[in-house]
């Protein structure tokens, strides 16, 4: 078990290398569902694993990022921005047709993952609720749009794939949203409740004078 635990993050971190193999890349990218719901999350996960490793191996980088990532806000905003960009149908097509957009896809998802991981220790539950609430809403909105429009939005994918991807995005939103909202929302409420009581062992942040 320990063996698996130690190798799993490394394996996930190195997963983007498999997209260097054209047959494997084509197999995943030729399906809209796999492109959006497998490749994107894997790139994000690879970035998160790399971010964890970077935080240990390069503390100076972690300290540098900490200066511009109070409460994990920068990581949260980056995830929302990158997700929004890659929901645009034109971006999905260009990721397959234009090498610049393909490079941006890998860098943006991976980079968002690194920032998320670096900011994990600073992540405020309020920011988490804001982020995941917005992310779930965005996934569901894009999903509803994809499955309801009767013409293909992408030139690289058939309309029936678009419908299935839309359904997939809605399911992901329904699973991800409530789970993460419950997890962080409860933390948020418990912290809010705790702060309403007289402090027992000091405050988390010093009060502004």
């Amino acid at each position: 078990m320990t063996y698996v635990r130690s190798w799993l993050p490394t394996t996930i971190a190195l997963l983007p290398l498999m997209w260097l193999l054209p047959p494997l890349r084509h197999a995943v990218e030729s399906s809209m569902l796999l492109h959006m719901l497998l490749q994107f999350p894997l790139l994000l996960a690879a970035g998160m694993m790399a971010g964890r490793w970077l935080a240990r191996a390069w503390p100076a980088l972690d300290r540098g990022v900490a200066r511009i990532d109070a409460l994990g806000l920068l990581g949260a905003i980056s995830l929302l921005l990158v997700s929004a960009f890659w929901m645009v149908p034109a971006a999905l097509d260009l990721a397959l047709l234009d090498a610049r957009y393909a490079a941006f896809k890998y860098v943006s998802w991976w980079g968002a993952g690194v920032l998320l991981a670096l900011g994990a220790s600073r992540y405020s539950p309020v920011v988490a609720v804001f982020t995941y609430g917005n992310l779930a809403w965005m996934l569901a909105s894009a999903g509803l749009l994809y499955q309801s429009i009767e013409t293909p939005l992408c030139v690289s994918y058939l309309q029936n794939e678009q419908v299935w991807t839309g359904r997939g995005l809605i399911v992901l939103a329904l699973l991800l949203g409530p789970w993460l909202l419950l997890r962080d929302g409860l933390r948020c409420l418990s912290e809010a409740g705790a702060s309403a009581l007289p402090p027992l062992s000091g405050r988390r942040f010093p009060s502004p004078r």
Partner: protein
Amino acid sequence: MRARLLPTLLACVLASAGVGAALAELTGGFTHWTFEERRREHARQGLLAAPMLARADAPVHEVRILDFIFTRCPTVCRVLGTEYQQMQQAILQTPGSAVRLVSISFDVERDSEADLRAYARTYQAQSPVWTVTNSATPEDDRRLRRALGVVAIPDGMGGFVHNSALHLIDRDGRVLALYDYTQWPTALAHAQRLGTGNTP
């Protein structure tokens, strides 16, 4: 805490501006959200061109109405064939017209010379007004369609689905306009105006 929030907020604003700029570039100022809308806007701006289609020996005013086909297509290409037939008739009845029709097969692997000739016979294509052809190699086909932004994907039933349009192309290979199939009378009128040297 406030001191740490300011650089964070600045970084967030910068990240938002960066992705916003990329999104503006992608969508032509938040107006064209699909690849096809973006392609048509590029055509309107004169940014779409296929230099490999340039014909230095063609008349100065020559305008080609070009689209992509595959001869086994049971649906759209058949309708397109009929529309091309009507356009051919109109061109033949216009003395001095420099409008030419071109049907290019992208099914380079399966469409043989005989298949192309059979397609031309079916729709009574008359050379040199209407040419039915294909690229010499799959690589040439890929380069041509990439230049024009035409993507053909397997439909799962042995055929293809592709972003289809009538491309008005000048003798330098520049796309002058893109029209939907249903707009073929407008496309032909536009080409005829340009093809007789009478710019609109």
